[in-house]
């Protein structure tokens, strides 16, 4: 099919209109999610953390995780930076004193339980759930092991049971969801001897964090990490040094991960659903227009032909008639002429032959 410039632009315009219309719908459906009301969280205060690894031990115990390679009382593991593994939902890292701090700094690493988790948004089988308790939980029974969640997580938290050949699972902190719904404290929080981890309602924790900063402005950086990072997390952090000194990412922005793709993805239903209809419609209209045109053309031709035929007929008739008339006229004229001639001849003969006439008359009278 050849396509005219005008037609193409027309389609493009219609398609553009379709997307423009969809924008209003998107704004209404994508309002900010500030977490479930009354959901729980944990506030980690790095100025209180002594790096004792009791939280790791507590986590291991309550989650019945496998024995660690090196005992929890062995603090030499802190010499190298670690990440969460399939055997450890949480780990503590040491960061050596940098700007302004005399003593080493510690940070506990575990799932941050994002308000709008990236892991859940990429999971096409919905193995992850942001529960109303605040915890992001994982359902191994539906997991297909694609490990998209591991790639999506900006904090590099989910780990995979690579050593399990037949039923490998994603392993990550659950904020001790089974415990907190029973009213118990998460394992790590319970084990912390200095309350470097404070458990409570997220909103309350934000208040506590701000109050600590207000009371001890020299001790803290005036920021609660996780209040807005990646759209907010249920695990919050206070620190006495810039968060980057605790190897925490400061480049994440405040947009929740799902929203980064929701723009493009919300276009999909429109493209998939609306556009075929729209474009088929336009196509059909064009098609119909062409058909009607064709029909009209044919009709016009027929009419023209008919008209021409009629005209010709009329002409013929007229011509026939005029010919007839002419013929008649000619006959008449001929007859007239003949009569005239006859009359003339008659006159002449009459004068010539009056006698004859008389004779004739007589003869005629005779005859």
């Amino acid at each position, binding site marked *: *099919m050849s*396509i005219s410039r005008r037609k*193409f632009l027309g*389609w*493009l315009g219609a*398609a553009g209109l379709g*997307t423009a219309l969809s924008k209003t719908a998107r704004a209404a459906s994508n309002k900010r999610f500030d977490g479930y009301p009354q959901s729980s969280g944990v506030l980690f205060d790095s100025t*209180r953390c*002594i*790096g*004792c*690894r009791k939280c790791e031990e507590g986590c291991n115990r309550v989650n019945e995780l496998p024995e660690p390679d090196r005992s929890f009382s062995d*603090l030499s593991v802190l010499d190298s930076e670690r990440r969460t593994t399939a055997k450890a939902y949480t780990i503590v890292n040491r960061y050596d004193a940098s700007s302004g701090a005399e*003593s080493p700094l510690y940070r506990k690493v575990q799932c941050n339980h994002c308000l709008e988790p990236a892991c859940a948004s990429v999971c096409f089988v919905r193995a992850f759930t942001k529960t109303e308790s605040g915890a992001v939980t994982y359902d191994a029974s539906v997991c297909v092991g694609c490990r998209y969640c591991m790639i999506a997580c900006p904090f590099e938290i989910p780990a995979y049971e690579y050593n399990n050949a037949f039923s490998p699972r994603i392993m990550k902190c659950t904020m001790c969801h089974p415990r907190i719904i029973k009213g118990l*404290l998460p394992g790590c929080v319970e084990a*912390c*001897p*200095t*309350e470097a981890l*404070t*458990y*409570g*309602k997220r909103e*309350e924790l934000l*208040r*506590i964090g701000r*109050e600590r900063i207000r*009371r*001890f*402005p*020299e*001790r803290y950086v005036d920021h609660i990490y996780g209040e807005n990072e990646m759209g907010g997390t249920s695990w919050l952090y206070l620190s006495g040094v810039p968060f980057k000194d605790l190897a925490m990412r400061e*480049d994440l*922005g405040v*947009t929740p991960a799902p929203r*980064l*793709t929701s*723009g*493009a993805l919300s*276009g999909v239903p429109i*493209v998939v659903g609306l*556009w*075929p209809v729209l*474009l088929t419609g336009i*196509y059909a209209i064009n098609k119909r227009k062409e058909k009607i045109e064709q029909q009209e053309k044919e009709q016009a031709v027929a009419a023209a032909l008919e008209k021409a035929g009629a005209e010709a007929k009329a002409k013929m008739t007229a011509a026939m008639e005029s010919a007839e008339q002419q013929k008649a006229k000619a006959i008449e004229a001929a007859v007239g002429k003949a009569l005239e001639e006859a009359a003339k001849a008659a006159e002449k003969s009459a004068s010539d032959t009056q006698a004859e006439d008389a004779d004739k008359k007589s003869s005629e009278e005779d005859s």
Partner: protein
Amino acid sequence: MEKGRALMRWTAILVTFVMASFLMGSPAVFGVKTPPQKTLERRADIIRIDSMRVFGKLTRPPVTYLHQKHTEALENKNKDCSACHLSQDNRLSTKFMRLQNTAKEEVMDIYHTNCISCHKASAADKEKSGPVVCGECHKDGAGVLSSWRPIGMDKSLHYRHTKAQADKCENCHHVYNEATKKLYYAKGKEGTCRYCHQAATEDNRISMRLASHMECVGCHRQTLAKNESAGPITCNGCHDAGQQKLIEKLKNVPRMAANQPDFVFVKKIKGNGKTTNPATRMNLVPFNHKDHETYNDTCRVCHHAELQSCVSCHTLDGAKEGDFVKLEQAMHRLNAEQSCIGCHESKQTNQSCAGCHTSFERKRQQGTSACVNCHMVPNSRVSDEVQRSEEKMEAATVLENRQAVAAVYNVEDIPQTVTIETLMNQYEPVKMPHRQIFQAMINKIDRNKLANYFHYENGTVCQGCHHNSPAAKTPPKCVSCHGRPFNEKDPFKPGLMAAYHRQCMECHKAMEINKPVSTDCTACHAKRS
């Protein structure tokens, strides 16, 4: 069929186009990573040449100029400051190769011609040389970090200068005469340079930066020219942390002679003689001016605007001269190093004090009964008739009679050991050497006059641990207040386990007591079998 395929093709193009425009809108999709920072050199001699700013907006990035690098290079060629700085009336201009900022083009040419020609010349001599093309000087980002440290005239340095100048104060100190528009020396009116020379140059006074570089460096140069020993003339000499340490510091510096009192009552109203007024109700505060001179390096720590009594600007009701900071605020304001309490409070960060004081919120901790610690003398004792000299005598007597010893309970009343067993679970009870800890705390503040004055009640020292309850011989037990953690009704009170651990560990950390290590559980309580 042909038609249908073309339609599909167009649809596909459109879909791709729209998808791409969506994705473009969110840059975070392309996880942009910041490049790792490389460690930059730290220097004290960085000058940003942005002199062209006076002529309007800069068209090129300012030049990062390393002054010391140039002086060293020139020194090797036996050239001195005059290679780059012109002088007028025997004074070097701080500007480069000119005395004044004349016109934009002219100043620009001065920089370009002189810098480039010298760089070219040294390059021609096969020496290490500087850039000659635009972008190598005019580039964004300094490429170096500043380690510049300010320097001031402390007591020791001032004394060394007065000695060197043979007590000729007029060599440095001057005041400006508005009428004649000239500088002259006013005896007895000497003050800190910074009283007049502020951060920026104003109509009749040059900035502190300009004044100090012209005067200090100028004098040092001239002295050096006479082959006499003099102060530094290079950037690092004054502004590098390492070099600053090399500046000789005298231990016994005689008091500065500025007519200051030894002892005095903090005046509440302006003018001489009268210290009392029916309107002033608070007791008088005697002040040991002499001792406070020894605690501080400069006069301007307290006398931040002029060498006058506080009340001359900070009146009881506030006045314009004092920026409407009232006398009460000027004396009591926290976080202000010029105020009494502000300065006293800053001493709490001393290692000996920090153990208790870091865990306190920054606010006035003591009750109103503490006011009389300073407000010692009732108004009636110093009447209007009393002469100024007698008043000073009275202040001296009061202060000298004051005992600088912290009040404490009898040692026998302080428990020898305290066994903490409330929480016993994984570990055995802790036997805390209670009295030993107390003794250690007392020993720390033993020689500290300030601490001894202010720990004035028998239980004040005890309140470092036994906080939030009145000082008492038998304070409440920890468990009376601290219980289950994360109580929603009292979110700022730690649970009992955290209360114990933090009280011990944070104090040890602040006082730099490295044993026992916080992570060594069994150092305090043995593991339960």
